[in-house]
């Protein structure tokens, strides 16, 4: 029996965002957009979903006069990501 994969993470863009945040302490919205190649609107929607699930924290600040959106992974998000990778392993091994 295969373990169920977290539906929130089993999506290309959300998984890409989480993978990026796992290896960076925090990242700004434009950087995530650049690295994932997503559109701003789509990325914003997916970030809201991850934030609502408590997987990431979103902080809206200012850099000088420009608004700046910072994203960082939460311990819940890190645990969910680890569980997701563990589940993936079982799919790949069989």
């Amino acid at each position: 029996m295969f373990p169920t994969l977290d539906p929130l993470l089993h999506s290309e863009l959300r998984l890409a965002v989480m993978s990026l945040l796992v290896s960076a302490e925090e990242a700004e919205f434009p950087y995530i957009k650049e690295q994932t190649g997503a559109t701003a609107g789509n990325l914003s929607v997916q970030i809201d979903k991850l934030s609502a699930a408590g997987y990431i924290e979103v902080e809206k600040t200012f850099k000088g006069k420009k608004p700046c959106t910072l994203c960082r992974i939460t311990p819940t998000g890190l645990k969910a990501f680890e569980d997701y990778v563990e589940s993936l392993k079982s799919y790949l091994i069989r």
Partner: protein
Amino acid sequence: MEENSNMTAERSLAIITEQIEKNRRAVSKTLGQSLYISGLCIMATSVLVAIINFLSMSSGMVGIGHLLWFLLPVAIWFFSRKYIKERAHRPTNMVGQMVAKTWQTFAIFSLGFFIIAIVCTAILFPMMTTAEYSVVQIRVAPIIVLLMGMAIAMNGQILNQRWLVWFGAVAGLLCFVWEHFEVLTWLLVHCLPLKPYEASVFMSTLPCVTIFIFGFVGLLLPGMMLKKQAV
């Protein structure tokens, strides 16, 4: 990247690997650029200091060029802002932060020590005879090269580059001994038949040559290496 929930396990793994690798490259590039610019600034400053020291020697203001070192943090900050444009939204990681903090700590200690040495010299020099002063004076160069060697060795540990650890430790200690025990003065007095003016030119420019080499090996080379890795 589109919204796709029907991915295979292989595709999921590929996305994870690709994003982690992309991020590693972006962080390496930013760190490499910072080290590269800092190395260039240190090398340029040491050349400038040597030139000013040489030119000011005839006017009797020995070592006045060393005051330029205070401008180094400003120069690094200015050129980093000018040339690392995309840095505004680049993330950092533990390695990048540790390297940056190591050099920031070095800057705090060396500039602080420099200020203490200048203040002490200003207070002690008028109060003492030359013989007394030569005993109690604070010598800046040995401490700076020791601190710089330590920072380079620490960077080598953080970046997992053994050659950098060895260079920092060996060059830092050897240059400390060289500067502290005034090996150059001894060599000039006993081995080279130089005139006092020529000897003082050597003595005021040699610390600049040492710092130039430290800047090249300790900052510029690792910066180039990280930039190359990021391509």
